């Protein structure tokens, strides 16, 4: 009873994910996203802590002219994502407090690498105006040129860097 359930077939799960994306197009007129919620939250945090910094700021300002963080579409969607993933992991008995890492890397190094990787993805997402969900997947299925360019370059960057960080995973 306590063993975690196996993951779904990737093609079935992918088709399900595609139907979720299609529902977002049809119901909301937009796709999925993740990094945009970080942008909105970061802008809100700066506004709360250093209001002088956001006034007239070319980037923060763009995320703040809505009805507040609780009204932001992507923030609500990411809150849903967190709830959905939590429920799904619980139901499949996969929820576990722990650290996923390669066989030859310590917990501290893994957490540091995860954070550094996150920072690099944050930089890349601001440069590209989106991430794997909001730009690559959402725009890829709508045949956006920038989405395909980003997706190909993200995979290229990851493959190019993989041999250098082999110790993290192999």
């Amino acid at each position, binding site marked *: 009873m306590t063993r975690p359930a196996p993951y*779904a077939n*990737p093609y079935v799960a*992918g088709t*399900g*994910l595609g139907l*979720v994306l299609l*529902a977002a*197009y*049809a*119901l909301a*007129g*937009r*796709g999925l*996203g*993740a990094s945009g919620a970080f942008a909105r939250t*970061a802008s809100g945090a700066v506004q709360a802590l250093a209001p002088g910094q956001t006034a007239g700021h*070319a980037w923060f300002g763009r995320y703040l002219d809505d009805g507040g963080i609780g009204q932001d*579409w992507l923030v*609500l*969607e990411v*809150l*849903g*994502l*967190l*709830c*959905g*993933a939590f*429920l799904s992991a619980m139901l499949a008995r*996969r*929820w*576990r407090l*722990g*650290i*996923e890492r390669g066989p030859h890397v310590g917990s501290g190094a*893994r957490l*540091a690498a995860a954070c550094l*990787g*996150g920072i*690099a993805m944050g*930089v*890349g*997402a*601001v440069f*590209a105006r989106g*991430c794997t*969900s909001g*730009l690559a*997947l*959402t725009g*890829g299925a*709508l045949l*956006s*040129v920038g*989405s395909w*360019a980003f997706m190909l*370059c*993200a995979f290229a*960057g*990851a493959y190019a860097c*993989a041999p250098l960080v082999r110790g993290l995973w192999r």
Partner: protein
Amino acid sequence: MMPSDSPLVAFGIGIAFGVALERAGLAHAPTLAGQFYFTDFTVFKVMFSALVTAMLGAFWLSRLGVIELAAVHVPQTWLLPQVVGGLVFGLGFVVSGLCPGTGCAAAASGRLDGLSTVLGMFVGVLATGWAYPMLEPFLVRTAYGPLTLPQALGVPYGVVVCGVVVVALGAFRLVEWQERRT
């Protein structure tokens, strides 16, 4: 069908998104990292079956008049910043083993490496956003608006849709063959 910006729709779509990512095994960093060592192609299979499903769905539903494709927001193109941003993002992807969406899913499944990725993302977005006024001259270069591949290539939309399906099916066969070898 008229798009709605109801908060309930946003939250509901998010729940389904989180369930799909978790069920697919994409909240598990070693699975994602395996993609870049040619040992596990879950990322590619999930991402491209999702992309093909949504692409075909949007194409046919708009042909049948169920949805108005013009009412769907197409992510805009800033070619050069997206090339550079993609390369930097990819580097972060293999170092972390997660991306922003899957990082959130991992954190919600109790994984501290997911939480660490999410915190790093926040710092990266915040710092780059802060520096935006300095970076702006580069970040607004090569702006093409909501340009699509059919427009850029000058071929009908359906031809590109068909091309993507053919490439995806071929690539699925290739990765299945590679997985059997290892």
